């Protein structure tokens, strides 16, 4: 179901899954081209949460991303965070965040019960990745996205807030749990992994149940 939400800069849309009451998971996709690779996967997680665990979820289109009418060269990190917070307020209920990759940078200024991150990517690592793509593909912009300098300047200072953190096996950074799977955000052709989505939905559901008691 598609619903609107209002934030200070206008109106955007969000996809809603599951029941209209109880805890609700607010999902943040990664920024830029990784968002396209992770959208179907995020939807699979939210669908599994709703259908197998009866937990609601929303996937907002944040300002300047996806179907938003605001061009990417006009966005700031603060706009993305404000959009995420507004979507969480609109979703109502007891909100929990689900940040995927650099989406984990967007739930810092939202009133939320707890945070859950999958393979979070800090701002300085995202900036290095963007600059490397920029140098490599010899084209204006960053992998097809035009970004303001202020956005890039903000990135090194962007960190993920403390959260339950899940990473893929083979990742040596601190994590609460390692799961088997491929880095879908790197696949040359966008893929989904429904088995991993079901596994992550189970982890989210168990964690939310523990947080609620």
């Amino acid at each position, binding site marked *: 179901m598609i619903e609107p939400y209002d934030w200070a800069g206008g109106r955007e849309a969000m996809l809603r899954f599951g029941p209209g009451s109880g805890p609700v998971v607010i999902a943040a996709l990664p920024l830029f081209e990784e968002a396209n690779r992770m959208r179907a996967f995020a939807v699979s997680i939210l669908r599994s949460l709703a259908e197998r665990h009866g937990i609601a979820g929303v996937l907002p289109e944040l300002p300047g991303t996806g179907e938003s009418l605001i061009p990417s060269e006009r966005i700031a990190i603060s706009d993305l965070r404000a959009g995420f917070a507004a979507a969480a307020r609109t979703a109502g209920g007891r909100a929990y965040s689900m940040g995927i990759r650099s989406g984990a940078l967007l739930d810092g200024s939202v009133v939320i019960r707890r945070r859950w991150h999958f393979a979070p990517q800090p701002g300085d690592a995202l900036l*290095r990745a963007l600059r490397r793509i920029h140098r490599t593909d010899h084209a204006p912009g960053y992998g097809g996205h035009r970004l303001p300098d202020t956005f890039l300047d903000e990135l090194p200072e962007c960190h993920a807030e403390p959260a339950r953190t899940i990473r893929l096996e083979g990742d040596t950074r601190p994590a609460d749990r390692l799961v088997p799977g491929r880095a879908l955000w790197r696949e040359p052709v966008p893929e989904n992994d429904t088995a991993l989505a079901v596994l992550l939905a189970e982890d989210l559901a168990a964690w939310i149940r523990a947080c609620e008691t």
Partner: protein
Amino acid sequence: MLEVETTVRGVLRDVLGLSDDRVAAFDEGTPLFGALPELDSLAVAGVLTEIEDRLGILIEDDEVDGEMLESFGTLTRFAAQKAMG
């Protein structure tokens, strides 16, 4: 070293879209850059970024050359030296 090798193997699998069987057969002498058509310059950028992320290391542009990317062995040794400081 084994942990780094497992990580590099996983990164090549994911970024280049290779099968588990194919990367499992990679050994020290398996040629990479110039031998794998999937490994173009954008894929190299993805491989370097993903190795940085998973191993918590930084790779500078001037460290990246044909020798480092020549084989699975040279790439793994480079990453291991970085990871061990």
